[in-house]
C-alpha cells in the first residue's frame, strides 16, 4: 500500500493514464499563510481587583456561524502565576499554548527549587507573546488571535495586558476582546475606570461584574455560549473554573424585540 496520503483515493494510473503534473505546479501559486481564522473563539474579559485579576471566556469554538465545538477551554494557566485568555483562531491558540507549555517546562528547570516563584511574571509573558505575534505579522503569516494576559507585574501589582495579531499591545484596569470591547468594556469601566478604582474593588465585586458582562454577551453575541470558564489569579495562585453556567437570565425582553429577520409585524 502507498503510505502517502497524497496518493490515497487517486485514480489509478494503469486505468486512467498518468497524471498531468502541470496541473499541480506547486511553484505557480503563492505560499499560503493563514488568511482568515477558521474555528474561532469570541470575547475574553478581564478585570483587576485589589489583590488580583479575574478573567473569563466562554467554551465555544465556532466554525463561522456554526457552533462547532462546545467544550473548548480558552483560558490557559501558565506556571500557576498567570492566565492567558484567547479569542480568535482556535488552532493558533493550540499552537501557542503548546509552545507556552514547552516554555514553562524549560523555565521550571531553569529556576532553582529553593526559589519556587516563577521568573516569568504575567507582564513578562505578555511581552514575550506580543513579540511572538509581532514577528509573525511581520512575516505576513499572523497568528490570528487577540489575547489577554493576566497575573502580576514585576512590582507584584495586578496586571492585565492585551496583545493582538498585529502585535499591538496595551494595558488597562479592565479589558475585553472582540465584540466584548463594544458590549462589555463600557460596563467594566463603570466597575473600575482607573487603577485607583480597581484597587478598591473586592474579588466578589470583580466576579459579579464579570458574570453580568458574560450574561450581556450571551444575550447579544450570536457567537457565544452559556457555559464559560472563569479564572481568579491572586497571590495564592490560579483558581480556574471551566464549567460555569450563566445564572438568573431573563429572556422576557426577547419577544418584545421587533424588526429583525423575517419577522414582519
Amino acid at each position, binding site marked *: 500500500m502507498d503510505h502517502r496520503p497524497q496518493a490515497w483515493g487517486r485514480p489509478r494510473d494503469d486505468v486512467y493514464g498518468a497524471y498531468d503534473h502541470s496541473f*499541480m505546479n*506547486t511553484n505557480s*501559486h503563492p505560499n499560503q*499563510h493563514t488568511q482568515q481564522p477558521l474555528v474561532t473563539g469570541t470575547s475574553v474579559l478581564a478585570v483587576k481587583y485589589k489583590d488580583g485579576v479575574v478573567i473569563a471566556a466562554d467554551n465555544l469554538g465556532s466554525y463561522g456561524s456554526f457552533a462547532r465545538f462546545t467544550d473548548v477551554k480558552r483560558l490557559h494557566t501558565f506556571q500557576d502565576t498567570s492566565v492567558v485568555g484567547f479569542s480568535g483562531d482556535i488552532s493558533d491558540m493550540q499552537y501557542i499554548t503548546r509552545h507556552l507549555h514547552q516554555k514553562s517546562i524549560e523555565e521550571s528547570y531553569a529556576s532553582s527549587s529553593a526559589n519556587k516563584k516563577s521568573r516569568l511574571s504575567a507582564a513578562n509573558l505578555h511581552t514575550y507573546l506580543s513579540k511572538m505575534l509581532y514577528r509573525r505579522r511581520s512575516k505576513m503569516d499572523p497568528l490570528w488571535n487577540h489575547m489577554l494576559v493576566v497575573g502580576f507585574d514585576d512590582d507584584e501589582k495586578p496586571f492585565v495586558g492585551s496583545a493582538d495579531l*498585529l502585535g*499591538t499591545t*496595551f494595558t*488597562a484596569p479592565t479589558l475585553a476582546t472582540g465584540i466584548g470591547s463594544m458590549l462589555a468594556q463600557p460596563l467594566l469601566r463603570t466597575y473600575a475606570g482607573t487603577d485607583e478604582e480597581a484597587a478598591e474593588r473586592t474579588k466578589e465585586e470583580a466576579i459579579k461584574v464579570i458574570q453580568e458582562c458574560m450574561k450581556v454577551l450571551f444575550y447579544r453575541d450570536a457567537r457565544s455560549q452559556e457555559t464559560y470558564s472563569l479564572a481568579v489569579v491572586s497571590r495564592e495562585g490560579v483558581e480556574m473554573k471551566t464549567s460555569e453556567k450563566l445564572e438568573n437570565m431573563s429572556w422576557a425582553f426577547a419577544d418584545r424585540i421587533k424588526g429583525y429577520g423575517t419577522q414582519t409585524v
Partner: protein
Amino acid sequence: MSAMFSQNPVMNGPNYSFSDAPRTNNGEFREHRFNPYSDNGGSTLAIAGADFCIMAGDTRHTSGYSINSRMAPKVFRIGGSNSDQSDATIALSVCGFAADGNALRDQLDTVCKIYRYRHGKPMSVHACAKRLSTILYNKRFFPYYTHAMLGGIDEEGKGAVYSYDPVGSYEREQCRAGGAAASLIMPFLDSNVNFKNQYVPGSGVGHELKERERHPLSRPVVETIVKDAFDGAVERHIEVGDNLQMMVITKDGIEEIMLPLKKD
C-alpha cells in the same frame, strides 16, 4: 487542503488533481489579504527652546472608534544605561501604528545602549538622529508606519528636535506636531512659535514689511503652548485625549510631567 501537503511537494509522484489556492473572481490567485497595519491614533508635539526641549504626547490608544487604553504613553526615554532609563538624555516620540512604534523604540534603544557600551559615553542627539533615519530607511519597503520625533540637547547645549517621516526622511526643526491631530496643532505652532505671518506694525507695505522677530521661547511659555495645543486638539479630534505626557529635557536630564486631559 492540498496546501497542507504542498509544503513538501512530491514533484514526480501523485498529488491532488486540484489546486485550492484561493482565487479572486477574475480567476487570479488571491494573495495575502491580511493587512499588517492599523492606526492607534493619538498625537505628539515637540518644541525646542534655547537650552531645553519639550516632547509631549497624549496617552490615548485607540482602534477605530474604540478606546483601548487611557494610559498608553508614546514618548519614551532612549539610551539610558539601565532598564528604568533614569539617566537617559534623549526622548523619542512615536505616533501612528503603536506596534511598529514599540519595535522602533526597542531597536533605537538597543543601538544607543550598544553605542554607550562600546564608546563609554552616551550617544549625541545628532548621531542618534542620523541612526534613527537609517533604521527607518532599512525598512523602506515594509515601513514602520509611524511619525517619529527625537528630542534632546545638542553639543552646543541648545534644544534640538528632529522629525521623521515613516521611511526616514528627517529634518531638525524648532517645533513639530505629529500624529492624528498634527494638522490641527501645526498651524497653531506656526503662529505661536515661529510667528508666521506676523509683521512689525507700520514697517511698510509689500516687500518693505518686516517680519516679527523670532526668539527662543522660555520654558513656562513653551509648557503653556503645549498644554493649549493639546486642549485644542482634544476638543476637535476624537482620537486625542485622556492624559498629556510631557518630557522636559534639560542639561540635568529628563523630567516627566503627566497632566489630565478631557476623557470624552
